[in-house]
């Protein structure tokens, strides 16, 4: 085992951190949020120029050949900067479907467009009453000649408002909650019958409601087996969970750093509040939670491209549960220690807290994953 970054990985981290340090101050971010897109097209271009959009794709497909560790590095840095850009939606989720489910033709067509930053993707799966269950799909896909016709509604599609194309789960057969009969379709958001309404989410990112009204897609829009696309979606989401865990490390680390700094300068009763033992121990509880979150994220990263679906899923349940729990410890203590100033929109810590809260909500909260892990027989059941 070796937990040190390679030279290339260190360079990746350093150059991304430098870019974000230069461009992503608190006021800059506010400005990006106020644009129609809700994020910076200029930063997006710079990220693409750095090669981040190409990072996880195989070199043969026009990518750079990075793996889960590289994605972890990028996501942690983006988390630390509270970046608003649709990297997760486009490269982690959308790119995941391309990498893991795309045919040679699909990859040849789409990877270069993602890699150069010109194509934005998203993944639409949530439906009314699906909650966190990927297998709950009422949206229908009906064969129509060579292609398919899709109808249904999807909710809270992360960055769905700016996506050029959206991966959509749709039911090709079976009942609403059957595991089989789910297909993955890539829908062009300009197609007839597609309507969207975008909005901000609690953390200042963007999402959309998506309605598909008899949208016709060609045969080439299908990713993987149209009758059994759920395993592909699960695999993509598992990798996305590892990436969110990495993002959470950046978010939690930033909250902790802000808090410890504040404890050193904020005075009450004539002394820095960092001299109060109770607050010191709270700061230590945060630190311990972050280190444990880092450890479980490393574990999730290690398991992210495992071919063993059950083992990989257990690792992701564990990671999402742990970062959800730990993130709450870190976030709530960060606000509490800051006191009133932490409650204000003009101070950074609250924004990190909101992002952390929304990371917990994404793809199943801590309780959901704890329950799923328990149902799957626990973490050490198969092998200790």
């Amino acid at each position, binding site marked *: 085992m070796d937990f040190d970054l390679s030279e290339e990985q260190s360079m990746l981290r350093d150059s991304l951190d430098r870019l974000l340090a230069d461009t992503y101050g608190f006021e800059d971010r506010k400005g990006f949020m106020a644009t129609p897109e809700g994020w910076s097209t200029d930063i997006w271009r710079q990220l693409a120029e750095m090669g981040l959009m190409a990072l996880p794709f195989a070199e043969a497909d026009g990518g750079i050949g990075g793996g889960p560790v590289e994605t972890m590095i990028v996501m942690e840095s983006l988390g630390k900067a509270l970046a608003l850009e649709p990297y997760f939606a486009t490269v982690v989720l959308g790119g995941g479907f391309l990498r893991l489910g795309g045919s040679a033709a699909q990859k040849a067509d789409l990877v270069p467009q993602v890699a150069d930053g010109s194509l934005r993707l998203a993944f639409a799966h949530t439906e009314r009453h699906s*909650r966190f269950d990927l297998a709950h799909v009422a949206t229908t896909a009906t064969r129509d000649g060579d292609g398919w016709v899709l109808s249904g509604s999807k*909710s809270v599609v992360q960055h769905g408002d700016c996506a050029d194309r959206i991966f959509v789960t749709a039911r090709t057969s079976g009942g609403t909650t059957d595991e089989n009969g789910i297909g993955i379709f890539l829908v062009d958001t300009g197609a007839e019958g597609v309507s969207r309404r975008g909005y901000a989410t609690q953390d200042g990112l963007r999402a959309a409601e998506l309605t598909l009204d008899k949208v016709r897609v060609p045969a080439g829009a299908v990713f993987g087996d149209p009758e059994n696309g759920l395993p592909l979606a699960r695999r993509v989401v598992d990798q996305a969970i590892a990436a969110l865990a990495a993002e959470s490390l950046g978010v939690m680390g930033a909250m902790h750093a802000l808090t410890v700094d504040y404890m050193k300068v904020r005075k009450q009763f004539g002394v820095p509040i960092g001299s109060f033992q109770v607050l010191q121990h709270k700061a230590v509880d945060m630190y311990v939670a972050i280190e444990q979150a880092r450890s479980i994220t490393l574990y999730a990263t290690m398991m992210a491209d495992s071919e063993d679906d059950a083992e990989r899923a257990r690792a992701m349940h564990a990671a999402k549960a742990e970062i959800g729990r730990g993130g709450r410890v870190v976030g709530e203590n960060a606000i509490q220690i800051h006191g009133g100033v932490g409650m204000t929109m*003009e101070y950074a810590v609250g924004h990190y807290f*909101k992002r952390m*809260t929304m990371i917990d*909500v994404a793809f199943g909260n801590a309780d959901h994953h704890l329950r799923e892990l328990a149902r799957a027989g626990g973490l050490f059941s198969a092998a200790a």
Partner: protein
Amino acid sequence: MDLRFTDEENAFREEVRSFFRDNLPDDIRAKMIDGEHLDKPDFVRWTKILNAHGWGVPHWPEEHGGTGWGPMKQYIFLEELQKYPAPQPLAFGVNMVGPVIYTFGNQAQKQRFLPAIANLDDWWCQGFSEPGSGSDLASLKTRAVRDGDHYVVNGQKTWTTLAQYADWIFCLVRTDTAAKKQEGISFLLIDMKTPGIEVRPIVTIDGGREINEVFLTDVRVPVENLVGEENKGWDYAKFLLGNERTNIARIGVSKQRVARIRELAALEMAGGRPLIEDERFREKLATIEIDLKALEMTQLRVVAADAKRGNTGKPDPASSILKIKGSEIQQATTHLLMEVMGPYAAPYLPEHDARWNEPSEVPEYAPVAAPNYFNNRKVSIYGGSNEIQKNIIAKAVLGL
């Protein structure tokens, strides 16, 4: 020892309930259930209804418009009000400055201010906290210098809730910079229309606009607006801060939210059945309910002791428990309510936006849940943070 409510108390509870049912405007109640912020006219309308019925300031002495209810009835009134839910009378006037004025103010002040508080003709806000003071309130820096018949006030107040609506602000100001920090403070009543006062909103992380900064620049305040004696303001402030016992735990608010969680968790689905049928979810809710039931009994013990001993106006240090557990429960309920929403906790609707104007799968009740969770982080911070409350118990109760 008799652990049941008396028949009279039960009858009173019914009377209060039916008054709320018959008199609270439906639109106001709907806003409260939905967790939306109320506007000024909502408060004013409701307060005038209450006051017309003689219930504007239930706990005040009868000579000033109070009801003569004992502590238990006052508690029942508040609990039912919170549970219904109906808006609480504006605390800054009714619970804070009002009792200070009728206890320490002069006759002219009583006549001028008390009826207008009860009827919400004057909207009051509180000028205690300052940017540097936080939990160390007595370190405040706002100065008041005597100049003839006036004090000239300069300084900055912060966390001033609903100051944007306020007609008056009660302020702690430093009138003697040479004295020990608690001893040079005075208690001033200031007309918000006085030149030199500027109110700037502080937006909170939930997007709310409840709180403000208040800047005071050469604000001239007539000396007749001094309450009590100069340099004795800290005593009045302590009296004020110790006066909140029957409300601090917010039992009724939490009961109402528990009912709301149960109601909405029956509408949201998890694994193909209503979330409320999920065993783990029910256990989390039950955990909160147990804590809340225990806290209700703790509250009743404090109220009953008050009733027995007569209100001494001195805070019982044990009431710090009410603050600690009350805030923990409020935070637990807002978190659980957010969890009910699942992925629908994510959409953000700024407060004064129109409602969703297109058909949508996002349930209307969902977007306020996360902001309420964020906003309620404040309850373990304000009014003496929970750490301060524990310091108080350690010292005053445990003798450590």
